């Protein structure tokens, strides 16, 4: 078994130069009743990395995480941890720990007993256990007198911290997080995101985090993987994913965007209505159908004084205030809706009939 596991890691000479991945997935699949929840994922996760997997619900990200944690076993493919095949290693024998979406705190135990649970498994002496639990509570900023508090009487944020402390008590090599912040209010979420990032840096451990929230992923991750229908469609730094989405799905997933479908024509690209489209040089898309993706902040109102490489006309039918910025919904002649986001100072003063436009350099052309 272990010889199979070793081969994908040691074969390539490149792996000698780059740090050896702590977790490696090779063509991992998980099939439930003929449905592939995870459909052939290959992924290297480096030591000490903070990797976030994002995707809409049903994209298979939770199944992927459960396989990594040992709560499901893959139908196909290999999962190796430091070069050891762990496909069928049960969760209680893996040096990994999962923070559940529900947090899965033991409701009949105190905060201290929850945190000490993995230490009790290891038969650590009671005094030592207590000392370690209090250390961890300080680390996650839980007051010391919470030690003997019933865990169900803690607030949402406090429960979060207990779950984190308990995971750290297990002292895993890799920590997995299954949307643990999804139930919290915005302010607390922001605070805990930063704290989690700090904990990651201080502990030097590898974090694999899943979420459906772009913001969460952007704030915390070294790398982001985008999942769709059981596959990883793109993986890269937050910057890469944001500025060069691999396809329309990734572009749309990462915030509000304007999409203009285009097709290949003689000497360049044209819109559906036949009007030529200026695209940035060096666009390489397979096939004859493509989409231009323009973020709302790169869309602007075209006036006599300020033109744009691409224009279209329409009428404003909604205006939203985003604080320092304003967002307009513009309906084009063809009935498509476009978002234009401008600084408050550049608010549109004219009537409802507008021409909007964008420059080729600010648009991304993606296949499909």
């Amino acid at each position, binding site marked *: 078994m272990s010889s199979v596991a070793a081969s994908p890691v040691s074969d390539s000479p490149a792996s000698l130069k780059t740090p050896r991945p702590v977790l490696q997935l090779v063509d991992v699949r998980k099939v439930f009743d003929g449905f592939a929840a995870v459909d052939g994922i290959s992924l290297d996760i480096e030591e000490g990395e903070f990797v976030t997997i994002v995707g809409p619900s049903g994209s298979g990200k939770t199944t992927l995480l459960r396989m990594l944690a040992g709560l499901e076993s893959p139908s196909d493919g290999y999962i190796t941890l430091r070069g050891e095949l762990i496909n069928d290693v049960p*969760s209680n024998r893996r040096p990994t720990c999962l923070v559940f979406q529900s947090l899965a705190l*033991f409701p009949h135990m105190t905060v201290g007993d929850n945190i000490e649970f993995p230490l009790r498994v290891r038969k650590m002496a009671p005094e030592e256990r207590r000392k370690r639990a209090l250390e961890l509570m300080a680390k996650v900023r839980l007051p010391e007198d919470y030690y003997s508090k019933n865990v169900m009487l803690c607030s949402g944020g406090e429960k979060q911290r207990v779950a984190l402390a308990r995971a750290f008590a297990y002292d895993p090599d890799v920590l997995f997080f299954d949307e643990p912040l999804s139930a919290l209010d915005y302010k607390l979420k922001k605070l805990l995101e930063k704290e989690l990032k700090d904990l990651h840096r201080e502990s030097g451990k590898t974090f694999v985090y899943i979420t459906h929230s772009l913001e969460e992923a952007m704030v915390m991750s070294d790398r982001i993987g985008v999942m769709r229908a059981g596959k990883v469609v793109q993986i890269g730094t937050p910057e890469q994913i944001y500025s060069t989405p691999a396809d329309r799905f990734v572009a749309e997933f990462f915030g509000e965007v304007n999409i203009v479908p285009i097709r290949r024509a003689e000497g360049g690209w044209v819109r559906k209505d036949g009007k030529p489209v200026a695209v940035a040089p060096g666009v390489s898309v397979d096939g004859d159908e493509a989409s231009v993706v323009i973020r709302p902040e790169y869309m602007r109102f075209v006036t006599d004084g300020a033109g744009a490489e691409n224009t279209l006309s329409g009428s404003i039918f909604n205006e939203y205030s985003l604080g320092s910025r304003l967002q307009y919904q513009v309906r084009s002649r063809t009935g498509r809706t476009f978002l234009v986001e401008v600084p408050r100072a550049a608010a549109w003063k004219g009537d409802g009939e507008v021409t909007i436009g964008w420059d080729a350099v600010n648009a991304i052309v993606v296949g499909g």
Partner: protein
Amino acid sequence: MADTSLSAPGPKLSPGLRASLPVLFLLIAGFLAPLLTVAAYAFATPKSFDVFRSFTLENLSAIFDPNNTVWTSFVWSLALAFACVAILLVICYPIAFGLNKVFGKWSGFVSVLFVFPLFVSENVRLYGWVLFFIKNGVLDGALKWFGFSGGPELLYTPGITLFGMIYVYLPFMLFPMTLGIAMIPRDLVDAASDLGAGRLMIWREIELPLAMPGILIGALLTFVLAAGAVAEAKILGGQSVITITQDIEVAFTYAQNWPMGSALALILVLIVSGLALSAMARLDLDKILGKR
């Protein structure tokens, strides 16, 4: 109290109290009144119907008379009830666990199999067992037919009484227990395993405490029912053991000594409710459920 007219001036009843009046009335008429009548009968003149008009401790002193052997009935009833609960705990846990985690789509069918006997009268089912165990009955006859020397003499023993009680009260332990086990969130078991715990530790520290409310309710229910059991001892046990309920029944019927029957019933109620309450007090349901 006498003022029942709603239009009459006076202290107004709160909406909550008014809404609870029907239930309150039902409880007073259907539960409290008979109980008080029984309690009153227990202190009435022996072998009379002078309830509420006489007060004597003769019935109780007759029961506690050292020459009276009725205490053996109490001991048998309570011992059989304890044994029944203990054995049912052991039998039902694996079935309840299976209904939740193992049987999958068959669990509905298995549940129905356990519910089904409840549609048939208890006495009919017990007589069915008599036919099964009786000499030249189903078991004995079949064994003889296959050339064996015949079945063992099981009928009319304390053992078969216990068997009958276990058989009759099994659903009352099984279903609360099944609900209790269903209350264990799967995430907690997964989390415990993920934190390194083995099967035994997960069972002891997570599953058992979280299923405890259901287990406890099942145990109390079966204990209370088993302590009042009579048909098993009469039909299957052939009166080899006299349970206290049978003594009470005899006092009320053949003996026509209602005060004596009431005194016995009162003592039984006190013993059973005392045991049940002390068990409930020791096991803090709120704490188990994490509400405190």
